[in-house]
């Protein structure tokens, strides 16, 4: 994972649209030229969903899609509580208080490397930005493999866009309606063991719920994969000041917001 000396800014973004992808999933499009220029794949923004004291704290979302020429970016989120509920009810034209770009970001593969990405559910959010970024930089799509797993078919979003990228895609649904029946980590491990996924000259990336990342972390330790995983956590400050969002690693506790959110999967100790 990479870090660079970035200047964290506060900006007032303008909400352009709130699109419902299914009953729980939403896409928020925000106009903020400064952050669309600065955001890197893996970075996140910290925003205040309202001006009240309840909910009090800001919420963290990774950048999902960035269009520099239009000065916009998108966030993908699932309604899980009051904060995301309020966010889903925002209207175009409303202003939103943003703090970004926060955290480190994915490191990029060399042109001659292959990459394998694993996304579990909402974990597709930062990985889509990363994919688009790599393709824009003329990274050969034939060198990219994506494992994308969800619980149910209706959570399989962005399929048209992903298919158009001409990358290799493996799908998994837990109910078996599409693709492999089971968890994405089972499919990933199967492909790895049967050597259809090669370890040599390959960079691995993953994002998804913690149990999935724990599996990925275990696999990475066992087979010594260099896999970058993007973690999430409740983050009171988002900038490394409060030490409230730490994750256990082999080198002690690290702040997800500042030392991450992207970590080497062999380094973290997840329960």
């Amino acid at each position: 994972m990479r870090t660079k000396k970035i200047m964290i800014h506060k900006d007032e973004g303008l909400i352009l649209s709130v699109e419902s992808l299914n009953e729980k999933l939403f896409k928020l499009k925000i106009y903020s030229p400064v952050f669309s220029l600065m955001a890197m794949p893996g970075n996140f923004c910290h925003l205040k969903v309202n001006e009240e004291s309840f909910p009090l704290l800001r919420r963290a979302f990774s950048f999902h899609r960035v269009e520099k020429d239009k000065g916009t970016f998108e966030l993908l989120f699932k309604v899980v509580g009051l904060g995301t509920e309020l966010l889903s009810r925002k209207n175009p034209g409303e202003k939103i208080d943003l703090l970004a770009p926060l955290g480190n970001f994915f490191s990029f593969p060399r042109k001659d490397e292959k990459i394998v990405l694993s996304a579990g559910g909402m974990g597709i959010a930062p990985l889509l930005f990363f994919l688009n970024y790599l393709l824009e930089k003329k990274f050969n799509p034939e060198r990219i493999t994506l494992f994308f797993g969800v619980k149910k078919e209706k959570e399989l979003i962005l399929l048209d866009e992903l298919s158009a990228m001409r990358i290799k895609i493996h799908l998994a649904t837990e109910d078996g309606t599409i693709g492999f029946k089971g968890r994405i980590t089972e499919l990933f491990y199967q492909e790895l063991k049967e050597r259809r996924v090669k370890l040599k000259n390959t960079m691995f990336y993953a994002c998804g719920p913690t149990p999935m990342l724990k599996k990925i972390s275990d696999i990475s330790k066992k087979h010594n994969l260099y896999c970058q995983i993007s973690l999430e956590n409740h983050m009171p400050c988002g900038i490394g000041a409060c030490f409230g969002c730490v994750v256990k690693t082999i080198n002690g506790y690290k702040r997800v917001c500042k030392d991450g959110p992207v970590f080497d999967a062999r380094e973290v100790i997840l329960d």
Partner: protein
Amino acid sequence: MIPDLSVGIGKIKFSNPVLVASGTFGYGEEYGSIIDLNKLGGIITKSITFNPREGHPPPRTCETPSGMLNAIGLTNVGVKRFIKEKLPFLRRLRTRIIVNVAGSTVEEYVEVVRKLEGKKGIDLLEINISCPNVKEGGIAFGSKPESAYKCIKAVKENTSFPVIAKLSPNVSDIAEIALVVEEAGADAVSLINTLVGMAIDFENKKPRLSNVTGGLSGPAVKPVALAMVWKTAQKVKIPIIGLGGIMNTQDALEFLLAGASMIQIGTGNFVDPECSVKIVEGLKKYCEEKRIKRIGNLVGKLKTK
């Protein structure tokens, strides 16, 4: 008319009464790209202990209605690394630097204070005798008058910096503790530290914090903090620094009226990193509009009858 926002603790002058609270502002540098740190009255560092501390396992924080719980466990780099790695940045600022000190024993407080003695860039010490999350230290000193007295007295005997005692609200009479630390030589008191609280994930039958209990902060605690500041202001002569849920200029003014001559912004920094500097501006504007010459003229001006 340009109102005079300056205030003082002992011989130390502050450009304005707005400080940022320990534990919410890291070692200062974290906020440096977002706000102009020199606009603050002062910066209070994370609690510094003698040895580095890893802190508690996650989860360490949890949001609650209009507030949050934390049990960080005094994570810090230890006094030696603080001096070497963190103080040089703070030293370059034109704002006042207050180092918050914590310990497990009176000896540890003294050892930390001795290491800090005479170091350039430090203006005052704030002694944390009120951390609710660490069993052996912090609150063990702040919850009983005798131990609070002993700790502050020992610190005073080993430092030439002015000393602020940070008090816990988790006591039967905070004003009594304030009185004894004043007697022990404290130059000011700051109150309140967080209130012991707890949140439960009932579906999984688990506490939301690994430490089970944590410290409650944010707007939810403001009425408690105001009452304690007011009560304490009736008893002590030394300056009171008020904190607890201050999010905006109006909140800050309420604390001044209750008897605090300075205030600290804690959880407010998380909600809006510009909160503290906005309050400095807001206080200035308020004084201009109301033709108040000195901010000090507002302190303790609550009309109770």
